[in-house]
């Protein structure tokens, strides 16, 4: 009995001690009960709320919608939570609007339908969430900003690279043009001077000699232009055949051994099993011939020229090493330039390694040289291994 007597007081104690606001609203939308937490939350005293329409707690902009929702809820009451997913506003007595989360539970007291609402002030939570969201947005902005900066840097890098390539191209063209200028203007000068002399010459034997010299120098210009046009043609990479690089080395060696000075030098080469690459045999022979020939000329008497082939999955490499004096650092970049030569005018026009490089590039390969500048030089030519399409 004592328990029963106390139960209402216990219930009152529990309800008023709850940190959440608790509100009971009648079917007509009038407030019939509010606990202490709710009264404090909204800034009223209890008497000011009892008997008032629940909309007293709703900001004016939301009153109509709230009324409609309340009426709809009364038609179909079921327990629910409001404001958890979205922003749901309430208004304090002093007019402050604040966010709340509301739980609704329908019930009955002495046959009268009522609704129990629990109200939690989520100002603190919202503000933490807002801060988090703003922080996230700021982070996203930062990321976007960095991404834009990175993108801009990438674009700038590409632009600089493109400009460098253009500059390099122009420099290469400049080197070529100056080489051509030299190679053509020299015989042209000879022709001009000789023609001037021919005009004033009365002796018929001298006149004949001048005419012959003029013809010979005209042919020299024509040969230079022919040589250049043969290797300046871009993309002439059709008609590539499947060939064995060892055959190419063997054929080049045969030609080299017949050339002057070759008998003074030891040429070492161990033939390797067949290595298939795709290319033009005569052009590749010329590549090897030119490099081996340079090696022989660099060695002088009793020198050694060593040829090695290596193969791995993707590429095959041929190295040609000579025991000559090496190539000084200052010349290493220029050796592939057209018309660059350290030999006298009768020993070539400086197109050898330029032509070599052009052919190697056309075959999808590359060439480099290694020399300490004192003893010996190694040229290495690499080609992609051909797919043989067998099986």
């Amino acid at each position, binding site marked *: 009995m004592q328990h029963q007597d106390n139960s209402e007081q216990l219930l009152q104690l529990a309800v008023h001690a709850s940190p959440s606001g608790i509100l009971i609203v009648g079917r007509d939308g009038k407030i019939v009960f509010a606990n202490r937490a709710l009264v404090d939350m909204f800034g009223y005293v209890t008497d000011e709320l009892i008997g008032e329409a629940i909309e007293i707690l709703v900001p004016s902009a939301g009153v109509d919608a709230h009324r409609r929702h309340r009426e709809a809820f009364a038609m179909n009451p079921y327990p629910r939570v409001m404001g958890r997913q979205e922003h749901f506003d309430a208004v304090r007595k002093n007019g402050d609007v604040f966010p709340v989360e509301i739980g609704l539970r329908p019930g009955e007291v002495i046959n009268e339908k009522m609704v129990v609402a629990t109200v939690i002030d989520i100002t603190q939570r919202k503000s933490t969430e807002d801060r988090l969201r703003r922080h996230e947005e700021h982070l996203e902005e930062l990321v976007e900003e960095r991404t834009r900066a990175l993108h801009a840097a990438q674009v700038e890098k590409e632009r600089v690279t493109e400009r460098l390539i253009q500059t390099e191209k122009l420099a290469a063209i400049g080197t070529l*043009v*100056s080489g051509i*200028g*030299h*190679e*053509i*203007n*020299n*015989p*042209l*000068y*000879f*022709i*001009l*001077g*000789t023609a*001037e*002399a021919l005009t004033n010459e009365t002796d018929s034997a001298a006149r004949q000699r001048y005419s012959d010299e003029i013809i010979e*120098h005209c042919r020299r210009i024509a040969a230079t232009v022919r040589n250049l046009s043969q290797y300046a043609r871009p993309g002439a990479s059709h008609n590539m055949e499947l060939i064995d690089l060892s055959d190419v080395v063997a054929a080049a060696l045969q030609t080299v051994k017949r050339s002057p000075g070759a008998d003074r030098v030891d040429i070492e080469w161990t033939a390797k099993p067949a290595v298939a690459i795709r290319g033009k045999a005569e052009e590749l022979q010329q590549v090897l011939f030119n490099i081996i020939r340079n090696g022989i000329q660099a060695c002088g008497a009793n020198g050694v020229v060593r040829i090695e082939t290596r193969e791995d999955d993707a590429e095959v490499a041929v190295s040609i090493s000579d025991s000559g004096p090496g190539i000084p650092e200052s010349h290493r970049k220029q050796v592939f330039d057209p018309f660059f*030569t*350290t*030999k*006298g*005018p009768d020993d070539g026009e400086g197109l050898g390694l330029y032509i070599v490089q052009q052919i190697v590039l056309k075959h999808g390969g590359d060439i480099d040289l290694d020399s300490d500048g004192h003893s010996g030089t190694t040229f290495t030519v690499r080609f992609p291994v051909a797919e043989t399409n067998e099986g």
Partner: protein
Amino acid sequence: MQHHLLILDDEEDIRTVIRRQLEGTRFEVLEAADAEQAMDILRDYALTVEVIICDVRMPKVSGVEAVSYFRQSHPTKPIIVLTGFPDIDLAVDFMKAGVADFLVKPVEKEKLVAAVEKAASTHNLFVPTDV
């Protein structure tokens, strides 16, 4: 008094044609195929060489290096630079280094003779005539 002119060019053809173009002038042509030969000739003909004609593109010692030797060892000798390819930067560098003229091959006889005469006239300013 003898009048000598020194040609430094690695190509014999060019030396030959310059010699032909200067035939009939008062100059006797001396030929050098590289800078070392040129320095030897300059030592032997120190007084009578009035003009040096120098190529630019040569193996071993380049024209730029050769000109700098000449300017140091024989600062009063006028130098005419003869190049196979016109390069403005190169021309400016040579003119700054004090060369008398910068000609691009092919050069017509009349132009070469005029350039040589003009260069020689500056040399005469430094040569004592009656010693």
